[in-house]
């Protein structure tokens, strides 16, 4: 007989094996599907974050364009020499992206069927996070990918007009003296602005020019700040004038940043463009050396945000979340 008990037992075993195999196959294929699908979403998130963080976008100065059609966004900052700072993101571009997030992202940075949020959290917790795009609604999604990058961001969009690095000069720099040849050098006596010499511990001046235009004055708050904020040099003082109208109107530094817009406006007079000089007097003692910054903050920046540390790009967490 073909249908024996042996055959029946064998068929039972085979059926069990077949069942287990089918089940295992099913699990494996669903895992593979998940893996490949997840991988593609992960790739989308990674590529999107790379594109935003590492490229300036196309065109490079897209943030200045009134019409954003045809623009591919990127947030990398570019300096005046068109040098791209990878991983340093521009605050102006971030704000432009925030205003047109859906138009700029969908189909350009991520596929149109994907949804995303982008939040930039400054490491310095006294600064508020920037919600470039922050929506809920991904609770039902099984696959969510988050790209978290650490980037640098010129958070307050500041510009350093003059930086007198006396502390490094005092201890590090070998021979080159700080400062340019000052227009006061033509005058006599104390007004001649003899250069400070930290190597010989000789008191004197460090002077640098900076250009100001009427537009800058209208859109910018200029501040004078020192690092450290409280300086120990008893003779330290500063002044600003222009070669065409040199003065000896010196002022002492303060612990707080000093707003100088009124002074700059007065010095510029009716001119729409002028080259001004900032002069800083110090004792030349390396132990008391301090750095001086003349910084431009966007008009209306809260006074509590006017700090030396915001003159350099701040570390931030760039959190980019993508789901379907």
């Amino acid at each position, binding site marked *: 007989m*073909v249908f024996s008990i042996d055959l029946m037992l064998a068929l039972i075993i085979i059926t069990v*094996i*077949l069942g287990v195999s089918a089940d295992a196959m099913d699990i494996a294929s669903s895992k593979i599907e998940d*893996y490949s699908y997840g991988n593609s979403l992960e790739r989308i998130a990674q590529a999107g974050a790379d594109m935003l963080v590492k490229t300036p976008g196309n065109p490079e100065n897209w943030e200045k364009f009134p019409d954003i059609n045809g623009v591919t966004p990127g947030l990398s900052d570019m300096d005046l020499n068109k040098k791209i700072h990878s991983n340093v993101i521009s605050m102006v571009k971030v704000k432009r992206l925030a205003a047109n997030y859906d138009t700029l992202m969908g189909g350009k940075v991520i596929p149109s069927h994907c949804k995303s949020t982008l939040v930039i959290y400054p490491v310095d917790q006294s600064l508020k996070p920037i919600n470039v795009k922050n929506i809920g609604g991904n609770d039902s999604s099984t696959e969510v990918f988050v790209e978290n990058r650490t980037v640098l961001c010129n958070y307050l969009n500041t510009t350093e007009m003059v930086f007198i690095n006396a502390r490094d000069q005092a201890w590090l720099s070998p021979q080159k003296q700080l400062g340019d040849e000052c227009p006061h050098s033509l005058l006599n006596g104390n007004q001649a602005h003899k250069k400070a010499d930290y190597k010989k511990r000789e008191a004197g001046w460090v002077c640098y020019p900076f250009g100001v235009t009427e537009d800058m004055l209208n859109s910018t708050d200029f501040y004078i700040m020192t690092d450290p904020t409280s300086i120990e040099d008893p003779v330290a003082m500063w002044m600003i004038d222009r070669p065409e109208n040199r003065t000896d109107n010196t002022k002492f530094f303060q612990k707080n940043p000093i707003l100088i817009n009124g002074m700059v406006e007065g010095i510029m007079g009716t001119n729409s*463009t002028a080259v001004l000089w900032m002069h800083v007097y110090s004792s030349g003692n390396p132990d008391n050396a301090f750095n001086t910054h003349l910084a431009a903050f966007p008009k209306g920046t809260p006074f509590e945000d006017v700090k030396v540390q915001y003159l350099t790009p701040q570390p931030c967490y760039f959190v980019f979340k993508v789901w379907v």
Partner: protein
Amino acid sequence: MMDNKGYIMSLSSFFLILPAFLLVMFLVDVSANEAHLQETTLNSHDVVGVATDLETNLPLIGREVLRNKSLEVVCSGIPLSNSRKDVKEEFQNRMNNYCSKYADKGMLVECIILDVDNSYDPFCVEVKSIINVEKGTLKHNVNLTQNISLTNGSFPIYDPLPFVKCRGHGGATIKGERIFYGSSLANYLQSRGIKNYGAYENATSPLSIKKCPYDPYIMHGNTNELINLKNCIDNGFYHESNDGACFLCRLEGKGICSHYGMEIFIIPAATVSSCLNNSSTAPSSVDHVIFNDTGNGTYSGHPILYFTDGNQYFNLYLDDSHRQKYGMPIF
């Protein structure tokens, strides 16, 4: 004893168990691939990291090459025959050395300098390059166009042109931040048959390239005392100029070129009396006028007193077009 039924059962079992074996093999393959994928991702990060490293270091190394080439010409007075080619070759050698250090890490790194040429900004030199990084089967290529600044950096870059032009006429010397010509510039002008060459006896000019902040340049003539001009001269600032030679052509000893370039004032020595009257002339005190030895390129200018301390009188000779450019009264 196994009868025929046993054979059927064994064969059926074998064929039915076969998919299970295949499945196991498939799973093993998937997990091996996953490990490979992870390794590839890590290698990919390595490769991109090296490319970024090179991208950051290219302008720094390029600036050193420009400084070295400039110093070479300053010291010898011998111009480069083809500065773009020479700088490119030197740059390529430096990059080859730099890239060879990655061989120990199992990577094949190559940086090809395609071109060294003028930038849109005369205070920069443009470099085009390709970076190739290979690790295993991974390859990464980047095409780059970067500007190397002649002005912003930890060390200054010297202007080589005066040293080329004055070689064989007594030579120029460096004192502090300025070039002192002694009699060499006057000799050079005399050798070309230029009138009133004596005005440039003991003349000076700036040594390192610095960009002038008095921009728009018309600001130089803002006051009657020409205080901005005086300050510009004291600091030795360079100005953008259509007629002036670009840095790469200066390395070749050319006083003028077709590229958008730079110009500086060459300052005649101070006189002890104010005997210069407006009708006296001398070659215009702009470097591309004085060093233009192609035809009649050296034209005259009238003196303009920009500073006096009562004992010494500091004059500059300027032609009308330069007076206009720098906002000074036209003769």
